[in-house]
């Protein structure tokens, strides 16, 4: 469970952005989390409540946009969406290690006042 330390790091960045904008509070925080990031969105939600207490983001809403895994099949010259990174092309069955998306762990937006 490393979601708490990831949220602490995210909050640190978010507060820095908010302060730079002269904001007093963070109302909403958006994250982009890939399905192959190794991070569990539910655990992030839980951690968010715990780490924001007494900060600029206390009471803020967390919005998590999940990014599905996208792999590339060189034989078919096409992208496909496997359930995990052990990806086999649904068309030709070839294994692909070329993961194009799904590893994201990003802060995407903030709503501040």
């Amino acid at each position, binding site marked *: 469970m*490393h979601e708490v330390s990831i949220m602490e790091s995210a909050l640190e*960045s978010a507060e820095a*952005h908010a302060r730079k904008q002269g904001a007093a509070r963070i109302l909403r925080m958006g994250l982009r989390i890939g399905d192959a990031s*190794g991070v569990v969105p539910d655990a992030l939600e839980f951690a968010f409540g715990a780490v924001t207490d007494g900060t600029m983001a206390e009471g803020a809403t967390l919005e998590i946009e999940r990014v599905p895994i996208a792999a590339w099949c060189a034989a078919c010259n096409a992208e496909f969406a496997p359930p995990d*990174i052990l990806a086999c092309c649904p068309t030709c069955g070839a*294994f692909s290690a070329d993961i194009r998306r799904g590893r994201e762990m990003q802060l*995407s*937006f903030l709503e501040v*006042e």
Partner: protein
Amino acid sequence: MSSRLIEVTEALLEKNDERAAANRELFRRHGVLALNIVSSPGSGKTEFIVRTLKDLHGELRFGVIVGDCETDNDARRLRVTSAPVTQITTGGYCHLEAGMIARAAEGLDVAALDILIIENVGNLVCPASYDLGEDVRIAMLSVTEGEDKPLKYPVIFRSANVVIVTKMDIAEAVGYDADTARANLAKAAPAALRFETSARSGAGMDVWYDWLRARVQTVR
């Protein structure tokens, strides 16, 4: 006061990544090869490192940073040669972060080392997300864990440059199926180099040492 939206695209572990880059810069400046060893608990990381330290003592200068949730048992086991060992007790943290390595490195004379071995906390999930500034990430798999471990934890195995299978001396006794394990590793970590070793019998260790000797030359 009205609310406003700020668009940002920033890695959640930006701070860790910055610290990792600073560690990498430090290691480069001193020509030190940094290895980050990850695995599940009990897969034989410490035993493997101890054997390596003993066998290459006098030939390569090692330093070790070892992370555990509690106790300094591993650090004591690792003090078998004159190689400096620094224990990080994470107090429940399930992984090492780049900042912890930076602080631990201050207590080591990095300039006097050829190789810095970082033994991560035993865990196949969390350490995958944290760049420590290492040159090589090594994932270990012991023969007792089951050949499908790489398929259960593909993210960390995919992130490794090297995979070391350990405890090969008891492979037969525990019914380890080497072919299945190799096939699974080819899927989870297709680009990784693979070594099959036993720190107890010494089998396969020479191949690992040859690779290490060659790899350390590339950072000098």
